[in-house]
């Protein structure tokens, strides 16, 4: 019999330190698969900032440079401008990209920096223990929104990707999820497409991925995947938000 599914080559053999059912693990694999399939292992550079995935360089067998919390887009800008023929991507949590890194992200997109961003939206600050994220939805219980997020007290969640789609320098923005096999495959296609956009030099590309954090959501992984479908996507609808590559909007 033929092996039809196995660990991608651009991942090291180290087991993940993430919690059971964590979306980061899934995304690492997906990105690894895309790197393999597109043959990018020798020309791609990843930029993981602080967040649960801060140790991503333990897993990816590619060049990686760690960023300070929130500043991945700026760091990647410096890298990519210095090495315009390499592929540069950031891998950022929602706290990282949509709170402290808001300005860096929006301006990288506005400038049209030719980089790719994987935006892992799990609606909480995973690494620091489950505080409210800018993307925590109304009513969501976190360690800093006691009784559930309330708009008057805690403010509304932020739709960063929708804002980034407005930026003139962004070429491709899509929101996907990793909560089911079909969504996982769509995510993979979206990431491949984002890298393609970068290879073409078309500008800023971003894939926002709704990603389970069973630990801080206090759900089982299976419940967490369901919650994404039933609750989270109401605030963060899946789909292509911007596509300037000329491809049809409904790529899948």
């Amino acid at each position: 019999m033929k092996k039809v599914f196995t660990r991608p080559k651009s991942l090291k053999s180290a087991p993940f330190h993430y919690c059971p059912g964590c979306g980061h693990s899934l995304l690492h694999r997906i990105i690894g698969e895309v790197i393999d399939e597109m043959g990018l292992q020798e020309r791609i550079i990843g930029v993981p900032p602080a967040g649960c995935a801060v140790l991503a360089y333990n897993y990816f067998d590619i060049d990686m440079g760690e960023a300070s919390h929130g500043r991945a887009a700026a760091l990647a800008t410096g890298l990519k401008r210095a090495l315009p023929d390499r592929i540069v991507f950031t891998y950022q949590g929602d706290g990282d990209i949509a709170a402290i890194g808001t300005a860096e992200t929006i301006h990288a997109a506005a400038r049209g920096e030719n980089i790719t961003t994987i935006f892992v939206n799990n609606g909480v600050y995973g690494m620091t223990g489950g505080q409210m994220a800018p993307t925590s939805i109304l009513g969501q219980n976190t360690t800093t929104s006691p009784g559930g997020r309330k708009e008057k007290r805690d403010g509304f969640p932020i739709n960063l990707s929708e804002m980034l789609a407005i930026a003139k320098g962004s070429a491709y923005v899509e929101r996907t999820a990793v909560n089911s096999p079909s969504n996982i495959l769509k995510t993979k296609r979206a990431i491949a497409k984002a890298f393609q956009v970068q290879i073409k030099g078309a500008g800023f590309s971003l894939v926002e991925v709704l990603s389970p954090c069973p630990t801080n959501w206090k759900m089982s992984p299976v419940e967490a995947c369901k919650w994404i479908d039933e609750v989270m996507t109401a605030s963060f609808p899946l789909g292509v938000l911007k596509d300037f590559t000329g491809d049809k909007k409904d790529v899948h």
Partner: protein
Amino acid sequence: MPAGYIEIDVELCKDCKLCMSVCPHQLIGTSDRLNQKGYYPAHFTEKNLKKEERRCTGCGLCAISCPEIAIEVYRA
């Protein structure tokens, strides 16, 4: 339907049960032995069946869903 087969690396498994939730034929269960990390790992129920007896199609949905890359899939 081509016959399929999966191998689960019990030491990588963290008992998230996602593979179980997606297998169209419910072919994955939970082992009753703790692994080194302290989890009861997933268990391929057709592991010891003959090829002909297996219902596993090798569709790979379990592997696609596995965060730990603990599953390898084989197909004829």
